[in-house]
């Protein structure tokens, strides 16, 4: 062997532990590559900021009524003024402030709805997937049953029993959406259980709880986060439709509140619907784009390993 000076071999470079900065830079690279994801992320962050700082951003209390200033058009139209940038509704509430606070409500519904649905679904899916056999059969039969019952029945029933409140909207979303999470969780659990690393963990004597919490749960996160994003988008979408429902809270659109007169509002006071509607569409779009991106990034089957 010819004794020679060799520079460090390719691929053998010193391992640098990723810092927060480098991790963020990596995420940024992934985002930059998928401009849709980038847009989704920016919009999502905007939504979060809007929700968190709603009292600072909104010029008015969303519930404050001022009948003298009712039905003002957006500021740039004749008759509008910058006190109410996007105009007012029939009680003289500021549409812009309502959208700002509505972001809060929509995000709350989406986040907690997904948390409930995800929590219930995760639990059911984990138990079903992990226990297998009769337990699995029973849980999945329940899941199928749940899915076979029309969503409106839940709405009608919960509305009648518990009345309308933001919490109940969340509850409805949580309950009706949980079977989806259960199915996905179960599927993933079954897949992960079959995986080599679980088998090898068993072979070194890992306990059931260790397998559950150390091996199965962390690997569930990716697919579930992706699913959650899509479901949040759907919830924001439906919350607008159901918002008749959760009264009082400052909602986007409040389609139900306008009830049957929505079309006439569209014609006469379009700003009352357009801007909130646009907010919903943008939110829904953001979550969809973000979900698409997360699916690409988090799905281990699509992730490229470094050769």
């Amino acid at each position: 062997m010819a004794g020679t000076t060799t520079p460090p071999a390719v691929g053998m470079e010193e391992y640098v532990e990723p810092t927060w900065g480098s991790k963020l830079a990596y995420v940024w690279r992934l985002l930059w590559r998928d401009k849709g994801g980038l847009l989704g992320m920016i919009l999502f962050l905007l939504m979060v900021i809007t929700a968190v700082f709603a009292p600072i951003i909104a010029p008015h209390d969303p519930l404050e009524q001022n009948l003298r200033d009712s039905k003002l058009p957006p500021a740039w139209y004749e008759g509008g003024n910058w006190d109410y940038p996007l105009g007012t509704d029939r009680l003289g509430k500021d549409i812009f402030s309502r959208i700002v606070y509505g972001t809060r409500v929509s995000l709350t519904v989406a986040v907690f709805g997904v948390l409930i649905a995800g929590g219930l679904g995760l639990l059911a899916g984990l138990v079903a997937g992990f226990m297998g056999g009769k337990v699995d059969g029973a849980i999945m039969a329940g899941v199928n049953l749940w899915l076979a019952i029309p969503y409106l029945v839940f709405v009608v029933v919960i509305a009648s029993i518990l009345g309308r409140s933001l919490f109940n909207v969340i509850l409805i979303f949580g309950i009706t959406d949980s079977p989806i999470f259960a199915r996905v969780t179960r599927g993933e659990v079954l897949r992960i259980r079959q995986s080599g690393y679980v088998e090898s963990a068993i072979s070194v004597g890992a306990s059931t709880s260790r397998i559950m919490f150390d091996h199965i749960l962390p690997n569930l996160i990716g697919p579930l986060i992706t699913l959650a994003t899509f479901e949040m988008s759907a919830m924001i979408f439906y919350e607008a439709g159901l918002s008749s429902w959760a009264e009082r809270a400052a909602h986007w659109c409040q389609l139900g509140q306008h009830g049957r007169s929505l079309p006439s509002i569209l014609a006469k006071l379009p700003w009352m619907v357009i801007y909130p509607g646009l907010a919903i569409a943008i939110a829904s779009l953001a979550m969809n784009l973000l979900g698409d991106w997360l699916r690409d990034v988090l799905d281990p089957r699509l992730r490229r390993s470094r050769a």
Partner: protein
Amino acid sequence: MSNEQPIVRVENLKKYFPISGGFLFNRHHGAVKAVDDVSFTINRGETLGLVGESGCGKSTTGRAVLQLHKPTAGHVYFKDIDLTTLNTAQLRELRPQVQMIFQDSVASLNPRHSVNKIIGEPLRINNAGSEREVHSRVIELMELVGLNPRWSKRFPHEFSGGQRQRINIARALALNPSFVVCDEPISALDVSIQAQVVNLLKELQEQLGLTYLFIAHDLSMVRHISHKVAVMYLGKVMELTDRTTLFERPLHPYSQSLISAVPLPNPKLERKRRRIILQGEVPSPLKAPSGCVFHTRCPLAYDRCRTEVPEYREVRPGQFVACHLADRDGSSIIPAQIA
């Protein structure tokens, strides 16, 4: 090896997978006899190679030996303890001594765990000391298997196939086992890397006095690493003997054809060689043939093979065969078949 003391003794091991299904109530429609009456012993410090084509039950045997699949029947003695009688807790206690290296090095490493976590997991499970001690043991193991210890915080996808298999080996060795089942540890690797891993396994065996059950379908590798070799076909051992005997004077027609099918990396020899090309493929274990399971593909099969299951027995000292022909005249059929 001089040490002739059996450390692992497998007796009449069976693993049947029930086929069930149907509506309303699960009914058993029969069973796949993945492992059907397999017996062998492995001496301390020795390697038993287990070869056969896919679906022959060699991996299931490996898992059944380690009780990762509960055997349907039979006994597995490890240092005279019958593993089949142990409950989960007792087994867990014994796990450190018996370990397994899995085939697919990608799938058998949790993608979300660092190397440190993966290799240290068996130690942590068995409470082998403080985190600092565990870490120093991990470093030690990484060095042992030829991994740069500074990579301990990396994740599996940042390693190449060969390196991942080294991680697997390091984990298996973490608890100082005396017996390791290697389930096709090299078949997913490139040729040059295969040699690295096999060399490593051999070195470790010499260094640590390990006993291996080495499962593979690559006969040349099995020959290289094993002391004894068992040939499986459809859940049964067809032939078991020391490796020299098997490769030079195989008795079972299946062993013969298997050996003859291995391509040799030598063009001249290869051109001269006459192969026994078996017809067809391994039948589905769902519908295993009657009599000798090999009779449907055996070039020498005759009536008796179709009806009567050949007895698995010691035809010559140390050479166990399950074939009626070997019964008649074990040695006479060899020269006719192998060039």
